[in-house]
């Protein structure tokens, strides 16, 4: 049987595309959430733990519009 390398590369390429695409989607969502959290001044975020950036300063808290 011929080796059909083109099919092998197509399969691996497609899998890389799907996995890379999903990883990028998660990374984009993470960036969007970080922007939102910064936008709301960390008001609706859980209190920051040690070593994490962002704070839940009651002075800057706003009510959701």
């Amino acid at each position: 049987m011929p080796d059909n390398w083109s099919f092998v590369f197509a399969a691996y390429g497609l899998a890389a595309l799907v996995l890379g695409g999903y990883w990028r989607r998660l990374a984009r969502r993470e960036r969007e959430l970080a922007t939102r959290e910064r936008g709301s001044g960390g008001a609706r975020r859980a209190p920051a733990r040690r070593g994490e950036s962002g704070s839940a300063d009651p002075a800057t808290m706003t009510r959701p519009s």
Partner: protein
Amino acid sequence: MKRLQRALGWLAVAGLAAGLVMAFGVAPREATQGNVQRIMYLHVPAILVAYLAFGVVLVASVSYLWGRAAGADRLAHASAEVGVVFTSINIATGAIWGKPTWGAWWTWDARLTSVSIMFVIYLAYLLLRAMIEDRERAARFAAVLGIIAALDIPLVHFSVYWWRTLHQPPTLLRPGSTPMDAMLVAALTINLIAFTLLSAYFVAKRVRLLKREQEVLA
């Protein structure tokens, strides 16, 4: 937690690199099919990881209905999404493998049909979650569907025994010893470990994102 998730991600990358080396550099050329058989190192781990992810959906759904813990619901949601990603890889690579070996991209074979039904059921699961605005209601309905959907997993796996199919029977998850060469089994196992690590990384990342989304939107 984030550090653990990052470590998991790097472990998955290392595993995938090792898997590629095993699949293309170490595993021998298969005698009957030739090099096209190397698609197996993607195709088989993808479905086994999808089974695992959907199994987690089942356990997390039962746990949610039992205790109404939001964490269980997030785990079910994240696992379903990751399971769908890996099932799509399994179906696509199966079609690519089928063309040179069977002469067809697709056939209405019991295995191919049942795995496609499983894919559509879990897509419907994700759609159901997206359609219902009330989070508690969405979680409850999704948990019920997550339990019912799991009934299709044994149907997919045993379809090759229960019906006459073009698809070969399982080579790893089968009673008795595997008929495969030890080096092929080693390559398959390393790729399976790599895919499991990658899916665990994706699930952990998605669970964290879902938690943050709920905090932001609350």
